[in-house]
């Protein structure tokens, strides 16, 4: 019984952290807000070259052949850094689902290209009210994995009608996709769909945990420095208690998310529950981090020039995307009570 990562996994995490500290600073994230597509092809290529993008892709297709547990800390770091590119969708969802459920021909067609960073993928999980799908970075991807109730579909982006949307978080844009699905596009069976749903939830939880950590770190730095009434804001008990409560939620969300990744890798019987537990809890933790961090920053946190809002908006989007906390609780209630 060992609930911890291996040295190799920590080394991967450290590598990702170092990469993001160099290539995905707040200034880089900000640059994407004004960028034409909001996605840096160069950074994605670098991420692929380091092996991060292809981490979960079998070695025969040029990936590292690793699993969800290996990836989960990287996703957290991506959230911490505010990475705009669809690492979550590509590496945590589409690649492993393809590897497990796609035909050889499909795998041959896509996996190597995903591993090299030549192709990007996203997940159509959230529906807009009008029957279209909202998909992260849908305007720049090549491949779309559609999760439609009990079925998965795989569709090339060029076969979809893609309409880029204005988003609150311009560092993670969303496109509205109209997608024709049918027998020809179906990928795998109901299990593929169930697995996709769980991978999305667990992966999104991991990214959210990184976002929440960043919100907390930015806030700790602020309240330790900012003085009011002759003392640091962070020395006031009200501020301390808010941030202690936030820390409690954020730190608790992390092992639950790691366990969900483990349950996915091991095909554990409680995989679906674990994924929903992770996303529900991580979403609520992010909401708390969002609230307290802005409140503790005071006026400066409302300014565009302060970095806080980059993560506030990411938290707000991911908290409600890929199943909100209450969606996932409803799913758990069905499992527990029906």
């Amino acid at each position: 019984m060992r609930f911890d990562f291996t040295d190799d996994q920590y080394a991967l995490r450290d590598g990702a952290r170092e990469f993001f500290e160099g290539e995905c600073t707040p200034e880089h994230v900000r640059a994407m807000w004004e960028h034409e597509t909001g996605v840096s092809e160069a950074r994605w290529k670098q991420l692929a070259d380091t092996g991060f993008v292809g981490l979960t892709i079998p070695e025969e297709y040029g990936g590292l052949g690793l699993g969800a547990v290996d990836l989960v800390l990287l996703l957290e770091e991506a959230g911490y850094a505010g990475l705009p590119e669809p690492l979550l969708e590509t590496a945590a969802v589409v690649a492993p689902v393809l590897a497990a459920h796609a035909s050889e021909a499909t795998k041959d067609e896509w996996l190597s290209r995903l591993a090299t960073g030549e192709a990007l993928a996203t997940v159509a999980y959230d529906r807009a009210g009008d029957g279209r799908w909202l998909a992260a970075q849908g305007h720049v991807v090549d491949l779309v994995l559609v999760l439609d109730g009990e079925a998965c579909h795989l569709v090339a982006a060029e076969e979809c009608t893609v309409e880029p949307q204005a988003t609150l978080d311009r560092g993670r844009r969303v496109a509205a996709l109209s997608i024709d699905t049918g027998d020809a596009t179906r990928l795998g069976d109901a299990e593929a769909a169930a697995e996709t749903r769980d991978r999305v939830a667990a992966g999104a939880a991991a990214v959210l945990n990184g976002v929440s950590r960043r919100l907390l770190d930015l806030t700790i730095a602020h309240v330790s420095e900012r003085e009011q009434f002759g003392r640091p804001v962070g020395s006031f008990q009200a501020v301390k208690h808010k941030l202690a409560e936030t820390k409690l939620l954020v730190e608790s969300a992390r092992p639950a998310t790691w366990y969900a990744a483990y349950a996915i890798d091991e095909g554990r019987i409680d995989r679906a529950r674990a994924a929903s537990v992770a996303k529900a809890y991580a979403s609520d933790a992010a909401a708390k981090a969002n609230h307290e961090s802005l409140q503790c920053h005071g006026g400066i946190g409302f300014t565009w020039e302060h970095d806080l809002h980059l993560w506030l908006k990411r938290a707000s989007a991911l908290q409600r995307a890929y199943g909100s906390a209450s969606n996932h609780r409803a799913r758990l209630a069905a499992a527990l009570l029906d």
Partner: protein
Amino acid sequence: MDLRLTDQQQAFRDEVREWLATNVPAEALPPSSTAEGLEAHRAWERRLYEAGYAAIHWPTAYGGRDADLLTQAIFSEEYARAGAPHRINVLALGLAGPVLIDYGTEDQKRRWLPGILSCDEIWSQGFSEPDAGSDLAALKTTAVREGDELVVNGQKIWTTLGRFADWIFALVRTNRDAPKHQGITFVMIPMDSPGIEVRPIMQINEDPGFSEVFFSDVRVPVDHVVGEIDDGWRIAMATLGYERGTGLGNHVRFSQNVDELIALARAEGADRDPLVRDRIAQRFVETEVFRHHTYRGLTRMASGEGLGPEASLNKLYWSEMETRIFEDGLDLMGASAQLSDEADTPSAVDEWHKRYWYARASRIYAGTSEIQKNIIAERVLGLPKEPRG
């Protein structure tokens, strides 16, 4: 207990309602943060002025109607119900004007009150500073007297309409050796004075409504000081009392917000969801409770009792409630809440976001929620003060 209006009050309500029905523009005005919008809002203010509605709470002698609090409340409620444009010169009508009326010389009143009333001159407020924040009296902007002038240096932040304002009423430190709350002076400064630079603050809702204002050797005639030099803190504190009349229509707005939430739930097909229903009902409960609280406070104020520190209960209540209303709206939208524009929703998602951020800002400005809780604990509940650091 009698919540009916007198015949006279009813007549005033009818008059206001009718005037608003005839005069409120059918289309929302462009945002006042744009030059075009500002002109449209000025025109609207002028119309209010001509109809005698610009500042009904001012004394008749200065162009008001000497309206009592209940009459003000009636006006504010009707104004909110009619969805009339937001008032752009509120800081002048609600703060600078009353300060002049209470503390200004006759010359000062004659000089500034008419322009406020007609909205020919727009005012901003220069209280907040970057290093002061909640601790307003920590302000550092200095004014040194040289002959008949004050020479002002420093920086103000969160000034509304900074780019468009004609005047700013500011607190400046005139005596650095005095204790923190002394040595502060209340002064009126023309915004076109040499040495003033205005930089808009881009907010996270992408609204450039606020500015930073920088003062470099700005020279202001000494007769622009209201009250005595070094006696400005007392006047600043008095302005807190003026705000009591400003929120009288707020409860109407919050009830409207709940109606919008209901419309949103219907549009999203979520109005049968018991979780959604429970939250909407809770928001309704909160707005109703606030309405009764408002009327209760109004009666107390009308009978001459001040609200005093209990005003903090009011501020804390509505700012937290407002945040929850708009957060519920975003939750209702689900994943679509990440979009910043979507024509399908009854109230555009953009508008929800903007109001959501405003609501969250309301937990910071005019005394953070934490400061309100301190005031309630120490001055309403009488709990012992914290030891000073």
